[in-house]
């Protein structure tokens, strides 16, 4: 009886915490929804600048993610295989973009960037690559740690696969979860970044929302909510796909915080 009492008390606590948390997170959303009104969602899409800013943000997200992965995947694999002693150093370097305030970074970049870059959104993408590096490195690092990298690469080599085949057919498929995590984090970062974009005078989606809030509060709140839902659905899609793949090869569910498939060794 005592045990039952304890467990029902625990259940009560769990529900209390859950409800408090739900109210904390959902109440503002509900309030925003009330304030904007359903009709505002329809007019958001017709607002000047909406499509352009969203397209710019999506383009930046895609470029950033691809460039970051293209740079970091070979680097991380190489460091793991050949220069394991440098792992700590690399970890230290990749933490810098998080430690240095965005304002400092972008002012520095604008001061030294060559003119031809300053006039394109590519500059912003390159800065975002630097910002996305820590997440990508961490995700890949954890993914590689979960693999017996040296053995797998050597097995692949001994079976006749060169470096490219090994990377493409063996490493990439096994790092899918890590790459998905890296993608999720990079995309979320790009879609939410404000400081650099506004200082670099680009109207990315977050900047557009801010600017719009000056003129039409309702529309801008509706846009924020829309952005939130779009991002949410996007991330949900990634985790579902990731989990399906991960289950197939023995890993667990993929969450936004999963960076590597679960250990799959058995005897």
């Amino acid at each position: 009886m005592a045990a039952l009492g304890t467990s029902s008390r625990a259940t009560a606590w769990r529900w209390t915490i859950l409800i408090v948390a739900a109210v904390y997170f959902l109440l503002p959303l509900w309030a925003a929804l009330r304030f904007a009104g359903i009709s505002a969602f329809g007019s958001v899409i017709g607002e000047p600048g909406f499509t352009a800013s969203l397209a710019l943000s999506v383009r930046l997200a895609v470029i950033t993610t691809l460039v970051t992965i293209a740079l970091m995947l070979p680097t991380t694999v190489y460091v793991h295989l050949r220069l394991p002693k440098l792992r700590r150093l690399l970890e230290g370097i990749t933490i810098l973009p998080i430690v240095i305030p965005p304002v400092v970074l972008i002012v520095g970049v604008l001061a030294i960037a060559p003119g031809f870059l300053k006039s394109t959104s590519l500059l912003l993408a390159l800065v975002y690559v630097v910002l996305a590096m820590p997440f990508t490195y961490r995700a890949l690092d954890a993914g590689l740690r979960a693999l017996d990298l040296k053995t797998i690469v050597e097995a692949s080599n001994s079976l006749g696969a060169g470096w490219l085949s090994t990377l493409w057919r063996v490493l990439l498929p096994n790092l899918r979860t890590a790459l998905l995590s890296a993608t999720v984090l990079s995309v979320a970062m790009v879609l939410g970044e404000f400081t650099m974009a506004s200082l670099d005078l680009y109207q990315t989606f977050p900047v557009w929302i801010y600017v719009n809030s000056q003129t039409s509060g309702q529309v801008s709140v509706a846009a924020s909510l829309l952005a939130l839902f779009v991002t949410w659905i996007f991330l949900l899609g990634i985790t579902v796909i990731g989990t399906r793949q991960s289950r197939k090869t023995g890993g667990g569910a993929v969450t936004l915080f999963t960076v590597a498939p679960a250990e799959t060794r058995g005897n």
Partner: protein
Amino acid sequence: MTTSVLLQDLTRAFGVTRALDGLSIEMAPGELVALLGPSGCGKTTALRIVAGFETADTGSVLVNGKDISSVPASRRDMGMVFQSYSLFPNMPALDNVAFGLRMRKMGASQRRQRAADLLDMVGLAPQARQYPHQLSGGQQQRVALARALAIEPRVLLLDEPLSALDAKVRLQLREQIRTLQQRLGTTTLFVTHDQEEALSMADRVGVMRQGRLEQIAAPDELYTDPATAFVAEFVGVMNRIPGELQPSGQVTALGSTVPVRGHRPDETAVDVLVRPEGLTLEVAENGNGIVTTRTFLGSVTRVGVQLSGDVAVQVDRPSAESAALGPGASVSVSLPGQPVLVATRLVS
């Protein structure tokens, strides 16, 4: 196709450690050679040089008479089974086995057929669609073996493939590997620190120590006729009994004087090396030892005897004749008449 392999005077240093110090081995086509030795003796380095994952500082590896030192690992046509599980986690067993064939641009249906045949050969046809994480350790190593054999390798390299498995599976897999290897006639280099494994599977066993080959011989020869004290003690159980070298070249221990074979140390104070089955043991009122332990091993019983001068030896006796040899019994231990190996006395 049969392949001969020649390791020629290989040396390899890691910093100040000499992992290999002039290793030469000649492997006949179809032969299974085991490299046996304590960890750090260089056996794995030797295997990795043959595989192409390490390079020798000097010396060369010849396959069918051709130096392959400059050929990258991916072009050496060597099947390798690793100590740790090395299957690609993202592929089911069948695709793992077919991987090497795919790299060799074999057509899809053909390679699937061949991979299925090989899985069948290692007894895992029903597991073809399973992913590595769904297989037991022993099954994974069998898939790894099938994968290594699928490419019809010129040489099969086994890097302690059984050491991660539990005893029963290890025993089964040992026999399976040997049977397959003999059936296919694949020249095989097998690295292990488990002497039982080496002795039971190999045509010849090379015992390594500090980057050098101490002796390479057939298992029975290695056991009955070890060339050095190191080999004698590394392979099987060996007693060390203090003795005195005589000017005549014989050695005196346990009250008898017997001939010495092999290397003779300069000192007169030596240890005589005798296997448990080489010692004679009798119950005696005022013998030279007291029984301390008795271990039943099936047909024989191993008796631990404490001799005077703080020397402990183990003696094997037929189990049927060991009833009186309980702990505390006074016994007499003596040397056989045959020539014995001696080694520099260990100071403890």
